[in-house]
């Protein structure tokens, strides 16, 4: 069976570009006309208030959501390691930690290939890197939430993808674990991977992430973290109207039935909001 092109040695991250990207559900935009260029090897935090579209954006980067309009370039054909906020992992499945983690090597063994001694060594190294040595043959159902998150990170290590996308990876994880895992993110960045992480803990962002994208349905600011997370920017982000307005008029730059023609016809400024138009 085919699977994404996999050259295990190639780890060169691509330039990721968002071109006037609009994402959403039922025609309501959750991410509205966002453009950005993410350089290879970035360690980028994606922050914003609840409902700002952070998860939606990262889902689109992972290829799980088709844009309403605009596009993402640089990711087609790329191997991406993605850890969603709520992974569909069934922790009651009767499998041991090593076998679950080993599935991160899918790009090398596929559905039918054999696991070799080298693969086994890689698994053990990945488990050691997240501090789970000794847990190799424990069942998944015996792990705590934080241990399970570490195991998922071990799987990400084995995926060894040039682009890593994480959605709230430290939400249910204690300080020590998140410190360990943050160190891992830095290591990935040093290896040249592009790492994009949705986070809500601003202190963590300030301490560890050189780049930040502040999102409030529209792009509020994007750049070096200290500059992006200013009072003014954060205040602007907080003023976003959270619930969708069912009576909102069509976006002036709404896609015509032919698709994305509007993106070229109506260059759109990111400061524009629909909320104001909808008010009586």
């Amino acid at each position: 069976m085919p699977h994404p092109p996999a050259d295990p040695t190639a780890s060169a991250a691509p330039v990721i570009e968002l071109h006037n990207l609009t994402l959403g559900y039922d025609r309501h935009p959750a991410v509205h006309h966002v453009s950005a260029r993410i350089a290879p090897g970035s360690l980028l935090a994606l922050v914003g208030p609840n409902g700002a579209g952070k998860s939606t954006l990262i889902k689109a980067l992972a290829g799980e959501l088709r844009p309403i309009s605009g596009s993402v370039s640089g990711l087609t054909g790329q191997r991406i390691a993605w850890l969603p906020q709520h992974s569909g992992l069934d922790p009651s499945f009767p499998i041991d930690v090593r076998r679950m983690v080993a599935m991160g090597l899918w790009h090398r063994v596929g559905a039918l290939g054999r696991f070799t001694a080298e693969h086994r060594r890689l698994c053990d190294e990945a488990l050691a890197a997240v501090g789970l040595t000794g847990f190799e043959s424990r069942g998944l159902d015996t792990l705590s939430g934080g241990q399970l998150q570490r195991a998922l990170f071990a799987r990400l290590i084995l995926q060894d993808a040039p682009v890593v996308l994480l959605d709230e990876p430290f939400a249910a994880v204690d300080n020590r674990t998140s410190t360990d895992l943050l160190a891992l993110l830095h290591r990935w960045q040093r290896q040249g991977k592009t790492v994009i992480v949705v986070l809500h803990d601003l202190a963590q962002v300030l301490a560890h992430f050189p780049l930040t994208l502040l999102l409030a349905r529209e792009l509020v600011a994007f750049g070096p973290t200290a500059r992006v997370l200013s009072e003014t920017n954060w205040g602007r982000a907080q003023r976003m109207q959270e619930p969708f307005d069912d009576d909102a008029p069509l976006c002036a730059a709404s896609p015509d039935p032919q698709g994305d023609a509007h993106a070229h016809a109506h260059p759109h400024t990111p400061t524009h909001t629909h909320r104001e138009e909808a008010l009586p």
Partner: protein
Amino acid sequence: MSEPAVTPFLAWLMTNPLLGPLVEFGFMRSALLGCVALSLSAAPVGVFLMLRRMSLTGDAMAHAILPGAAIGYLVAGLSLTAMTIGGVFAGLAVAVGSGLVSRNTVLREDTSLAAFYLLSLALGVLIVSVRGNSVDLLHVLFGTVLALDDPALLLLGGICAVTLAGLALLYRPLVMECLDPGFLRQVSRWSPVAHYGFLGLLVINLVAGFHALGTLMAVGIMVLPAATARFWVRRLGPLLLMATALALGASLSGLLLSYHADLPTSPTIVLSLGAAYLLSLLLAPYGALRHQRPASSHLKA
């Protein structure tokens, strides 16, 4: 050459009051062979069914194959070929239809499957009651394990071989599809292959079970061994082995019990599995009793 060695054993078997009928009567041998083939394929399928939380899906699919078998019966009478083709076709149609609905709409798998199988079942009941007679209906509902002829045995054997080969091929994607379907979709295109391939295996095993045990009992030999084994072991490999062994054991004991006590065969086989299930529920390490009671001692770390 080896006859002198075999003959005394056969003679002992023949005179053995318990196992004798298995040697003496061709129909008992056929029944045993059919049940062995069915156990080898249906029990592992049942384990994955349980792990995908689709145990009731098995039941729904068993009902879904009814109209196909009924149409086959309408066309060709009690014909193995016609009813098999009809059953497989109806089962696959329901599986693919509900799969498409659940993967492309807001409906979840359970609801979309329920919708399709209820339609299918109503159609089947309609056809059987308009055109069939009650003896045929009993055949469809309870199977004919004591009347398996050579073509039927060949069919069961073939389905067993296809199932085991299919499971070997799909093993890793299927494990991932149960464990973490989102991850599988992310790293490969095997997810739909695993899903529909597995449903295909489920359908052909239900058709096999339907010939041997009838539509109502066919799911029993899938779900009960898996559920019972879950009380005893915690890893996939042992689960598969133990479920298969349980199905084999219950087939043998059910057949013999039904012969000696003159009971209908397929419910007796399923009830043997049921007895194993209830016993395990009480006694097994992960059963109800052991699980409830806190351990009397604990380790230091």
